[in-house]
């Protein structure tokens, strides 16, 4: 990756820091949460100093992630409004996945898949936060049926969220030249023109 003054800025420093704060929290939460979910993952508690520390830290990390995500949500919300072109993109996502992206409709800063992911993650975050509070026995003592419902919702949504993050990370790795946008902020013009042509035209003024 050669850095070129002509490269386009996709994320500024604050946006990147915000994203990685959420990302680090998520990784730690997934590792500690999985440990409580299935015995096969229990050894992951060792990463946190044992089961008791994992139990203590998990909810505080959750609150931090929820706050950081809330800021990120308002940062990127207006960029993620679905348009007819996005729906068209989504209806043809199969072509994209099969490696043939030549006929995909022109996309702005985010494509339909990214936008769908954004809203799905926002919903998951909300559900995880609320159900997580139900389970936080150190500070909340809710009726047992509420806690039971919270446990089911929390683990089901967490599993969905982990799967979505796999897709999120994989998509960034699969589409070459993407990770750098979230690491030092820029992408090449060719990358922008190929994957987000409307955004490319908007920021460069070229056709």
């Amino acid at each position, binding site marked *: 990756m050669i850095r070129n003054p002509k490269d386009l800025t996709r994320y500024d420093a604050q946006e990147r820091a915000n994203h990685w704060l959420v990302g680090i929290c998520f990784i730690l939460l997934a590792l500690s949460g999985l440990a409580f979910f299935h015995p096969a993952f229990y050894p992951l508690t060792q990463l946190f100093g044992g*089961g*008791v520390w994992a139990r203590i830290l998990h909810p505080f990390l959750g609150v931090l992630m929820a706050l950081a995500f809330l800021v990120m949500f308002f940062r990127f919300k207006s960029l993620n409004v679905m348009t007819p072109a996005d729906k068209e993109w989504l209806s043809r996502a199969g072509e994209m996945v099969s490696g043939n992206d030549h006929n995909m409709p022109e996309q702005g800063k985010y494509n339909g898949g990214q936008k769908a992911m954004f809203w799905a993650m926002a919903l998951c975050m909300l559900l995880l936060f609320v159900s997580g509070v139900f389970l936080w026995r150190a500070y909340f003592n809710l009726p047992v049926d509420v806690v*039971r419902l919270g446990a089911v919702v929390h683990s089901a949504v967490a599993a969905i969220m982990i799967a979505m993050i796999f897709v999120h990370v994989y998509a960034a790795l699969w589409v070459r030249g993407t990770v750098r946008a979230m690491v030092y902020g820029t992408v*090449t*013009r060719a990358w922008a023109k190929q994957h987000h042509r409307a955004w490319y035209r908007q920021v460069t003024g070229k056709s």
Partner: protein
Amino acid sequence: MALQSLDIARRSATTTPAPGVRQTTEVAKLIDVSTCIGCKACQAACMEWNDIRDEVGVNHGVYDNPIDLTAKSWTVMRFAEVEEKGKLEWLIRKDGCMHCADPGCLKACPAPGAIIQYANGIVDFHQENCIGCGYCITGCPFNIPRISQEDNKAYKCSLCSDRVAVGQAPACAKVCPTGAIQFGSKEQMKDYAAKRVVDLKMRGYDKAGLYDPAGVGGTHVMYVLHHADRPELYKGLPNNPSISPLVSLWKGIAKPVATVAMAAVALGSLFHYVMKGPNEVSKELEDELEKEEK
């Protein structure tokens, strides 16, 4: 925690068999509510044998004292005043862990070895493995375990597993002055209960019966009730308790399904890369823009 270790029937958050070569007789404690006088000797004996003293609380205007189970009070007498056929009945139930054959606490517990079920039926908490999450409370159909505010470990009645391991009856059974608390093999206790039920029926309690709820696979603490058709009269003893379907879902099918789904997405991504290759910016576009930039 007891010294037994070769007679473990089930161990929390453990997917392989626990040491279980030693088979022991299934035991049970039988609490005959109809002969209990509410003296609380069982509560005192429990404190004494386990050597735990709860804080002295306040009187809530009722006989229940302490008012609820705590991490330091593993059994409490619950006093209910009900009117039956125009007569006042004082129903006194010794509350505490029921030692379910299918324990919801053990099913819910995420910490390996924090909850043990012995072959004799006793469900015991091993606090040194407890992480203090409270999932046992979420799993319990009887609302028994309590988390200590001091050490954040869960506590409950151990059925004096240490005494039982050396052939002694639990402290509460040993001390009960009216014989309302009996202890022995589960079969013996059922036989004893049957006799008590016959006696109660002769004395006009048509619905007298044994409380050994099948929904949790039976329990190793059983009650003889004068009104076995309405256990809820006894300060909310659940009628037909079972592990909540939500807990069964959470700690049952959800575990393999979610694990396989997550693994499938991760592996699917890897194989997608291997089979389809990376999505690179096309060479033509790169050349075109390079030309433009010059």
